């Protein structure tokens, strides 16, 4: 493991023990998982009325860029807080770098980087003061790990004397990321880092994450934006506290079993309503310029073509469509 420090000894001993145990049980995958969650359940409220997380299990190997994709209320923040030891789950187990989130929380708190939503920075301290502060808190200095944050920090370095509160959303994002990285964490937890930020900065941010991956840091990112899923190594689609699917983005898309078509016409509303009535249609929903039509099976294709021909006077257009993450999410939600 990179960046070993004296107080890692206990952790490493238990890791070694774990590796021995795994060898004994003939597990193939000897490499330690950076993050493991097993049957995590989390509820809120005195009578446990609200179930935020319902039997969540997954594992993230070291060095992976893992995305947790889901809308607000899906449980993303609760999950992150449990993994970063800020919340206790009702039941289930979780471990980061082999350390249990409940028993070994102190060890985890020393080694992970965490960026909660809203980019928690000190608005009345300057960029440089913020970074210096976080570096000192983590027993390091800006100079020590500068190479890690250099590509990110150079973009805001010209503003290093500006108060953090006066930065734009994109710049705050970069500063918050730098502060989370400054101590060279082994695992980075980013909770909705692209929410509320302009489209250009969002794209830049993902470029920065790809760059970080090359340094071997395991990154867990949560986001409500479906299109960002494609930028991850693997994703977990989450909705209402349940995981709908875990796979590589391509894997998820490949699992979309039904044929998918795109139609449009000059009268989109009636087009939608009519298609909904058709037997050969499993589902139809708006998807930007076109409607996406999910067929029950390929036998319906000729019927669809006929339908489109019938609507020629409305300039109906039909073309094949490649499913993307959003189509998969919708299909999984409706099951």
């Amino acid at each position, binding site marked *: 493991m990179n960046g070993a420090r004296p107080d890692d000894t206990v952790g490493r001993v238990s890791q070694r023990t774990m590796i021995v145990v795994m060898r004994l049980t003939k597990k193939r995958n000897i490499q330690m998982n950076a993050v493991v969650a097993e049957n995590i359940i989390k509820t809120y409220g005195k009578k446990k*009325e609200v179930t935020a997380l319902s039997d969540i299990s997954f594992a993230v190997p070291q060095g992976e860029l893992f995305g947790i994709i*889901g*809308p*607000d*209320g*899906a449980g993303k923040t609760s999950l992150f807080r449990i993994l970063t030891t800020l919340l206790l789950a009702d039941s289930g187990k979780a471990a980061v770098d082999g350390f249990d989130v409940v028993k070994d929380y102190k060890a985890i708190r020393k080694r992970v980087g965490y960026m909660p939503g809203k980019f928690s920075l000190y608005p009345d301290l300057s960029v440089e003061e913020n970074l210096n502060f976080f570096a000192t808190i983590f027993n390091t200095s800006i100079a020590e790990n500068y190479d890690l944050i250099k590509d990110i920090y150079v973009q805001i370095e010209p503003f290093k004397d500006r108060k953090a509160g006066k*930065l*734009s*959303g*994109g*710049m*705050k994002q970069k500063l918050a990321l730098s502060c989370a990285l400054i101590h060279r964490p082994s695992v980075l937890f980013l909770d909705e880092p692209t*929410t*509320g*930020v*302009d*489209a*250009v900065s969002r*794209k830049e941010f993902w470029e920065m994450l790809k760059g970080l991956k090359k340094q071997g840091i395991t990154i867990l990112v949560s986001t*409500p934006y*479906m*299109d960002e899923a494609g930028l991850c190594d693997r994703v977990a689609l989450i*909705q*209402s506290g349940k995981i709908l699917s875990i796979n590589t983005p391509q894997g998820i898309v490949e699992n979309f079993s039904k044929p998918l078509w795109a139609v449009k016409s000059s009268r989109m*509303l009636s087009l939608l309503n009519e298609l909904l009535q058709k037997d050969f249609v499993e589902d139809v*929903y*708006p*998807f*930007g*310029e076109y409607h996406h039509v999910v067929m029950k099976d390929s036998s319906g294709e000729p019927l669809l073509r006929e339908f489109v021909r019938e609507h020629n006077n409305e300039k109906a257009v039909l073309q094949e469509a490649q499913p993307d993450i*959003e189509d998969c*999410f*919708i299909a999984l*939600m*409706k099951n």
Partner: protein
Amino acid sequence: MSDDKVITANNLTKKFGDFTAVDHISFDVHKGEIFGFLGANGAGKTTAMRMLCGLSLPTSGEATVAGFDVYKENEKIKKSIGYMSQKFSLYEDLTVKENMEFYGGIYHMTDKFIKEKTGFILEHLHLEKEANALVRSLPLGWKQKLAFSVAIFHEPGIVFLDEPTGGVDPVTRREFWNMIYEAADRGITVFVTTHYMDEAEYCNRVSIMVDGRIEALDTPSQLKKTYEATSMDEVFLKLARKAVRTAD
């Protein structure tokens, strides 16, 4: 779509000291149109919307909303429009019914009307069982759909929606836009801002603000042709990349 212009703006400008937040924007919105008002954070969208809603006086330029002047008749504007934003829509610690009664009362609707409309909305959204539940207990998607219904409770001619689908799951988003279509069909003009570029496609026309000015205004298909893009996302990125202002 008739030719009635429900919103007109001519060189509308708003300055805060030296800073020009909104820089001489001009556009019209027709009755029953779904008008997408896009722009990056800091481009001036919110400031422009505030002026149109009668919440903020322009520095210069002219604008009318529902036929009323934004300078002199802003109270009349407020009575004729509906408004919904992502940040605030309903009172979380009141029940579904109480919220509707409250907003109906604010807009001077009669008791009879409020009762009928409440029943209608509950049925339409399949929320009959949740009529007496606190809004806080509803899932986000339901809240937003309910908030939209409440925003048009008093049947205004125009409704302003400020990022109404932020953070909502894909299925609910589409259900929401279905509701927008239905409202537009009934003649309500919808003025909506959004960060989801696919939603821009659902609009009749779209304007994109960059650095306080309207850099593009057209139908989505025309914009894609003009900017040689395959999606509104691409159009937006091409325009947004030119932006100088990085303020939040």
